[in-house]
């Protein structure tokens, strides 16, 4: 753990002492570089994408996937963020303007909100994470590169599907929040809202997939020695964010599913006339919608936390305070969704609770802000474009936070809610608090993106235009909001005194657009003619700056050993440490060159744990994304057979992409490696990584189930008679039978694992077959019950939720039966042994989870009416 190096105190030779001259392309002055090892070129080759078009489509490399996410997000920002805003602001420039009518205006604000919330900020930050995290963490790749590629393709296809509504003249027009019943089948009968629900639904699947990948990568794929107390703050922020995505987007997917069932299949979830509730949508939507704000904001704070110490030339003050604040914001953000619903008529005690919760979140936000301020206070700030954006961020975000506390005050919100005051507040938070850090991040990491510096002069121009423009646009909105101007109106009458403020806002938006043009110009010019950047042009402190700009495909030939929170400032050498770890690192630089190996570490110890195989290029993530989008598109076109085809493609593609790859090591050489380096090598997949993957997948399914159960009991409370008159009570005996059979399946999966661990392959096959059969039998029990019910899914919300919940149970059991079948298939040809049987472990874990979820689901379905 020794950090050799600078004399304590006034080390005049420290990297922070030297002037920053990025324009000259300084090459890594005084900060250490990682060793390339003798085989850097071979490794780079092995980790590169395959040649040709196939290579472009099949690549899973984190740099490519991350860059695609960022560029696609910026493209949608230009479409939905800029073009729409300009037209809307022109229309509102003067009273009673006639540039666009109400229909087009409604479509535009719906599009503006939907695109920026779903297709811009989150994908860009997930792109930052996928692109940068391996570099920041000192590792070669993300944990599940194919899942990352799948996330990108689903996001792209979902965005395109959503935008294709313009081609069919069926543009969504019910707001980005899509409140029922306005968004329901009765009041929005054409396909517009289906484009909205289904297109964004595909993109949400991508958001969740990326979140799974990001969290596991931060847990497992780090450099030796990078404990959680040394984790770069951007990684901390993304770790919290990825869990928030799981917990927030899943209820939204459930809400979207229920809405689409109402729209496409005639169920009654949100139909007050048939036992449904129009408020249920608002709860499901805002359980997502409020955390969503912090899902966008936390990555931004992570970027700020990376940039502040570099340009303040000072170590981060209060690192643990910032971490604690990040985690606290993550938790608190789920406790304040109802502050979007202060005017729906909630009980005063509920209002008081949510008002308090909404205000308390100002404390962790304040801690973060003041920790950055303290770092600047004690440092020696150097003005460069990224830092300019960070200072602009702090000013605008603090103002947005203050108005946030104001609207948390219930009576004040009664006036401000749905007025321009809220428009001002949310744009201060999202433009000042999120977009400014996003731009700061682009300027800061551009050297790692393309190996060049961005232009400082254009950068300053970009900053000032955006800063002045944003304040000009949004500050006057506070005032017209308090004067009573509501949101979402395409025009307003004369004589109310609103005109001047609106005109200033409209001019402001053009100033902002000038800033965006300067940014685009800067991107283009810097990419083509930028000054080549050295490895560390900012003399920054974290591991990505120890690699060449742009980095090699595999990032690190020899994994660095981290002994400090600011390794490049505190460590003179990045490969010194425990001799055994040093030897392991050198070995990784020389072997294996024929498959993609990566070092994983213990979650808390950060000691080397395994050398695992990382999945290589594959076309199957793309095919799986096509299958996914086919399911949604079939529903859009009401060609429901197409959904079956899409599901078949999806299942086949997922099976193919998880196909066990041939193991290129014999057991003897695996054991030799383990003896030499003290950790196992896993060319056939790591049970540790699989455990994380299946754990998070089950977490996702559990949240999904949780949101369905919440809907069940919410509808239960809304209805005095449950089940409604004329509906027979559920048959408790059937539920009990289904539960027993599903337990048999889970026990069989356990027996399969025990058998394979004992080397009994025949026993394993029998038990796996039994698991598949028992799973199917349980499904038959439930299907038979659904078939004979005296009600359907459409007459009453009770039937709607009954059939939906039962169908969810059927789907997760079907997935388990497919997994058991694949284990049977793969067990031919001696692929499994007492040592290699990862899929069997996965099968067992999954089936245990299915049994638990079935227990909760069956209990609700069959005993729900009795116990409530």
């Amino acid at each position, binding site marked *: *753990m020794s*950090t050799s*190096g600078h004399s304590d*105190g006034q*080390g005049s030779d420290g990297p922070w002492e030297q002037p920053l001259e990025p324009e000259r392309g300084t090459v890594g002055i005084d900060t250490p570089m990682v060793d390339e090892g003798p085989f850097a070129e071979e490794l780079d080759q092995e980790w590169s994408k395959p040649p040709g078009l196939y290579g472009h489509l099949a690549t899973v490399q984190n740099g490519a996937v991350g860059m695609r996410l960022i560029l696609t997000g910026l493209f949608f920002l230009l479409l939905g963020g800029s073009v729409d805003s300009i037209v809307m602001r022109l229309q509102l420039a003067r009273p009673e303007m006639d540039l666009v009518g*109400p*229909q087009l205006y*409604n479509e535009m604000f719906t599009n503006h909100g939907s695109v920026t919330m779903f297709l811009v900020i989150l994908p860009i930050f997930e792109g930052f994470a996928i692109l940068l995290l391996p570099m920041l963490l000192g590792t070669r790749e993300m944990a599940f590169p194919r899942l990352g590629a799948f996330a990108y393709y689903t996001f792209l296809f979902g965005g395109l599907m959503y935008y294709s509504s313009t081609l069919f003249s069926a543009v969504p*027009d*019910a707001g980005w929040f899509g*409140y029922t*019943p*306005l968004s329901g089948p*009765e*009041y929005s009968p054409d396909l517009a809202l289906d484009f909205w629900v289904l297109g964004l639904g595909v993109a949400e699947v991508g958001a969740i997939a990326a979140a799974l990948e990001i969290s596991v990568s931060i847990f497992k794929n780090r450099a030796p020695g990078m404990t959680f*107390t040394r984790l770069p703050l951007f990684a901390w922020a993304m770790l919290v964010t990825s869990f928030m995505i799981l917990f927030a987007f899943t209820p939204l997917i459930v809400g979207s599913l229920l809405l689409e069932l109402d729209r496409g299949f005639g169920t009654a979830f949100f139909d*007050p006339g048939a036992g449904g509730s*129009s*408020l249920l949508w608002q709860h499901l939507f805002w359980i997502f919608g409020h955390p969503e704000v912090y899902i966008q904001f936390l990555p931004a704070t992570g970027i700020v936390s990376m940039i502040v110490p570099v340009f*303040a030339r*000072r*170590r981060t*003050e209060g*690192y643990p305070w910032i971490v604690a604040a990040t985690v606290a914001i993550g938790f608190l953000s789920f406790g304040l969704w109802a502050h979007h619903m202060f*005017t729906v*008529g909630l009980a005063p005690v509920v209002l008081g609770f949510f*008002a308090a919760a909404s205000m308390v979140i100002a*404390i962790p936000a304040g*801690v973060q*802000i*003041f*920790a950055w*301020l303290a770092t*600047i206070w*004690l*440092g*020696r*700030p150097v003005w460069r474009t990224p830092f300019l954006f960070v*200072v602009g961020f702090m*000013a605008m975000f603090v103002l947005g936070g203050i108005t946030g*506390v*104001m609207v948390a*005050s219930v*009576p*004040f919100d*009664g*006036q401000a*809610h*749905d*007025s321009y005051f809220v428009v001002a507040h949310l744009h201060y938070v999202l433009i000042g608090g999120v977009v400014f850090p996003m731009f700061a991040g682009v300027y800061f990491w551009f050297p790692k993106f393309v190996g060049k510096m961005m232009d400082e002069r254009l950068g300053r121009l970009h900053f000032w235009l955006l800063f002045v423009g944003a304040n000009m646009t949004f500050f006057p909105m506070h005032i017209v909001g*308090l*004067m009573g101007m*509501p*949101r979402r*109106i395409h*025009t307003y009458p004369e004589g109310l005194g609103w005109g001047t403020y609106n005109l200033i806002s409209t001019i402001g938006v053009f100033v902002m657009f000038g800033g965006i043009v300067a940014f685009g110009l800067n991107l283009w010019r810097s990419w083509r003619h930028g000054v080549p950047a050295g490895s560390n042009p900012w003399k920054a402190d974290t591991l990505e700056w120890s690699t060449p700009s742009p980095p090699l495909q595999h990032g690190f030939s020899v994994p660095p050993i981290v002994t400090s*929170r*600011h390794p490049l*400032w*505190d460590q003179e050498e990045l490969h010194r440490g425990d001799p055994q770890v040093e030897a392991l690192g050198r070995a990784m630089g020389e072997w294996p060159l024929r498959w993609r190996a990566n070092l994983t570490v213990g979650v808390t110890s950060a000691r080397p744990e395994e050398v695992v195989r990382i999945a290589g290029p594959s076309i199957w993530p793309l095919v799986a994304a096509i299958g996914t989008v086919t399911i949604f598109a079939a529903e859009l076109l009401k060609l429901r057979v197409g959904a079956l085809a899409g599901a078949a493609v999806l299942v086949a593609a997922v099976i193919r992409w998880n196909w066990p790859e041939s193991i290129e090591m014999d057991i003897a050489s695996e054991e030799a490696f383990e003896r030499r380096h003290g950790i196992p090598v896993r060319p056939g997949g790591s049970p540790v990584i699989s455990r994380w993957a299946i754990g998070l997948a089950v977490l996702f399914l559990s949240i999904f189930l949780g949101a369905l159960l919440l809907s069940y009991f919410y509808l239960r409370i809304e209805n005095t008679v449950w089940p409604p008159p004329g509906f027979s009570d559920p048959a408790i005996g059937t539920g009990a039978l289904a539960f027993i059979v599903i337990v048999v399946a889970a026990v069989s999966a356990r027996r399969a694992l025990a058998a394979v661990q004992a080397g009994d392959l025949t026993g394993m096959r029998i038990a796996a077959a039994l698991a598949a059969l028992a799973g199917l039998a349980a499904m038959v029990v439930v299907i038979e019950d659904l078939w004979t019910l005296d009600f359907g899914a459409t007459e009453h919300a009770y039937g709607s939720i009954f059939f939906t919940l039962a169908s969810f149970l059927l789907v997760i059991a079907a997935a388990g039966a497919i997994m058991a079948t694949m284990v049977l298939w793969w067990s031919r040809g001696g692929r499994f042994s007492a040592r290699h049987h990862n899929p069997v472990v996965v099968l067992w874990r999954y089936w245990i989870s299915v049994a638990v979820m079935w227990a909760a689901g069956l209990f609700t379905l069959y005993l729900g009416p009795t116990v409530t």
Partner: protein
Amino acid sequence: MDPAGPVARDIVDLTIVLTVLGAGVFVLFVVLGVVALRRGAAEPDDAGPRRDEASGYLSTLRGTAARRLVIGGGVLLPTVIIAVVFGWTLETMNDLPAEGGADALVVEITGHQWWWDVRYPESGIVLTDELHIEVDRPIELHLTSADVIHSFWVPALGGKMDAFPDFVNTLVLEASEVGVLRGRCAEFCGLHHASMDITVVAHEPEDFDAWLVAQSEASVAGTGGRG
């Protein structure tokens, strides 16, 4: 911001408190920020960035300046401000009437795409997009909707309340001076949401009684509720 009734006046008082506190915090933060940005450039921090002794464990803040800023600015300042704001919020919420009381004028308002149906259950008067009230008498509005969600909002009288198709919400307002006020739908409700307005006319008690009589006669005469 131009209150014409006690509810709105309470909210304006609250708004002034919130704005003053907010502006104070913002100015304080900007001053601190400017000092932070200038002092480093003016006098280099002679402690210098030390080797990070905190590497392996969770450190607390180093140095008093950092401690004062983070604990004072990040924890104490927002806590105090929030306590004041929350207290004032609860106080205002308590002051706002939840029901109109025995002498309140009850009016049933139903939102439609894109108009307001206004009914006086006691006198049987039915109006469209128009609400007549009496000054200094609490008005108890029973809000519901015939189709999608609307929200009833007369800024000069008080906060808004949503109108749902599933249930009835109650909103109590009161005007303290005679006049014609603008109200409107504040929840996006489809194509013509922007023009879903309502006119509120506040009468002196005697004028209101006369208006009631005239309207009732007009209804009986079969000419309907409204001109």
